[in-house]
């Protein structure tokens, strides 16, 4: 019989730190906390680890963002991902196959050029390619000038790639468990106890527990969870739909993204094409698929890759994206409530951030001081009108 990845425990009365949310970010935070020697930690997951965005994303990793804050942060994340299989002793199947972002209009292409230059200045491997150079690496792509959205160029990012997202969740969970952290699934937080401006603990469906520090790491559900503590967030939850096709022999050896067409496309080691779309146009907490998505997405994919006219779709699903006004996350203490922290606003860019998010969040909780890397992602930046406009986030630019 396979050995369990993590143990089950009864809930204790008190913990030093309670992490609400057992996704990649929550479990990474728990893992790095244990590594820093903070072990009296509980991760509370309402369903099962990886139920939310961690198991619903398209598993793409990259660091070719646009802002200095974003590039540094995602590059730290990519660096941690590169060593993660070894560190966690778990095959995460990270394939750094290279990542294309296509430009179809003058404005989107000039945005890509800006990104290439910002990336180079900060030491991230990222540069522009012409349509002919793209065609050499992606022979099946349609670079005809007669397309509705002809390809004018692409930002190419060699270290970008795909990883097995479920394995990332499991490996962090197992690592955290080995380090002494307790992972409690089917444990739903029903209230956050705050007294005299200080967090006291949480009420769950399995009883009340007390903690010095409580952090919400629940992405799409952040607004609801933080409301329990009386904290208002700038998030709007939209679904993002994705699909996988049946397996085909390997033909696509790089990740291909087009913001104009709202497409991201890659091929897994099993041969399935994993395809993601832009976010749905209105806020929603349901995770069902629409025919409208399938129609629009198929039309756009066929324009890029006409050879796919006969492929069969195997599964469709949706995940929740907690979009922020500036497409950057919040990783921050909440000044009004001592001991309460928020890690959220991960929109369409959360999975690739998991290691850096977990590492810096753990550091913030363990040392009681916000690390420089995540200072720009403060909760107060909205009240201070000091946004971090990350227009290179997936499915927000055009």
């Amino acid at each position, binding site marked *: 019989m396979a050995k369990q990845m993590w143990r089950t425990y009864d809930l204790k009365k008190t913990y030093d730190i309670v992490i609400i949310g057992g996704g990649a970010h929550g479990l990474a935070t728990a893992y790095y906390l244990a590594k820093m020697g903070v072990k009296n930690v509980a991760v509370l997951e309402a369903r099962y680890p990886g139920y939310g965005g961690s198991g619903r994303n398209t598993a793409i990793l990259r660091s070719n963002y646009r802002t200095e804050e974003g590039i540094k942060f995602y590059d730290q994340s990519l660096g941690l991902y590169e060593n993660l299989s070894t560190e966690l002793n778990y095959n995460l199947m990270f394939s750094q196959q290279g990542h294309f972002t296509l430009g179809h209009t003058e404005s989107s292409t000039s945005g890509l050029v800006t990104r290439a230059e910002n990336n180079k200045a900060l030491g991230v491997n990222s540069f522009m390619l012409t349509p002919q150079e793209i065609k050499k690496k992606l022979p099946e792509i349609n670079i005809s000038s007669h397309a509705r959205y002809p390809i004018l160029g692409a930002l190419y990012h060699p270290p970008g790639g795909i990883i097995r997202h479920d394995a990332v969740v499991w490996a962090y969970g197992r690592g955290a468990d080995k380090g002494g952290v307790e992972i409690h699934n089917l444990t739903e937080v029903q209230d956050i106890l705050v007294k005299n401006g200080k967090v006291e603990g949480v009420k769950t469906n399995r009883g009340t527990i007390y903690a010095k520090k409580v952090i919400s790491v629940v992405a799409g559900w952040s*607004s*609801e969870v933080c409301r329990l503590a009386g904290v*208002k967030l700038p998030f709007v*939850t939209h679904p993002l739909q994705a699909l996988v096709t049946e397996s085909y022999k390997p033909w696509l050896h790089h990740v291909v993204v087009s913001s104009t067409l709202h497409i991201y496309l890659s091929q897994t080691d099993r041969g399935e094409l994993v395809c993601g779309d832009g976010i*749905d146009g209105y*806020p929603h*907490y*349901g995770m069902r698929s*629409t025919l409208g998505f399938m129609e629009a997405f198929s039309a756009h994919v066929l324009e890029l890759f006409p050879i796919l006219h006969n492929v069969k779709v195997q599964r469709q699903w949706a995940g929740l994206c907690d979009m922020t006004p500036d497409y950057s996350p919040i990783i921050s203490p909440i000044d009004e409530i001592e001991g309460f922290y928020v890690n959220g606003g991960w929109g369409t860019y959360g999975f690739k951030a998991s290691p850096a998010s977990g590492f810096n969040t753990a550091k913030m909780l363990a040392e009681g001081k916000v690390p420089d890397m995540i200072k720009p992602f403060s909760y107060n930046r909205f009240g201070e*009108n000091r946004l971090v406009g990350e227009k290179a986030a997936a499915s927000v630019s055009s």
Partner: protein
Amino acid sequence: MSFMLRCPNCGDRHVAEFSFRGEYLQRPQQEDEFASWADYVYMKENVQGKHFEWWYHGSGCQRWFLAERDTTDNTTQTTFWFDDRPRLINRESEPDA
């Protein structure tokens, strides 16, 4: 999830004809302090359940209206003009139209 939305002017139409234009929030007064304006611009309730929101019928009559919608299943919709909100939005603080 797709659904039909009832434009108060045109009747039931597919949601693709409309654009979502944000949660319905009460606008601060001109003289209110910066913090309440920052709050109005950025902070959202983002409710999992029923809430009020703005829609714009871009592919139809091009009018703006308000809707109450359940964000978990898109059911229980009522749609109405802005001027009808004191009657339909049951909030003590709702100003008269």
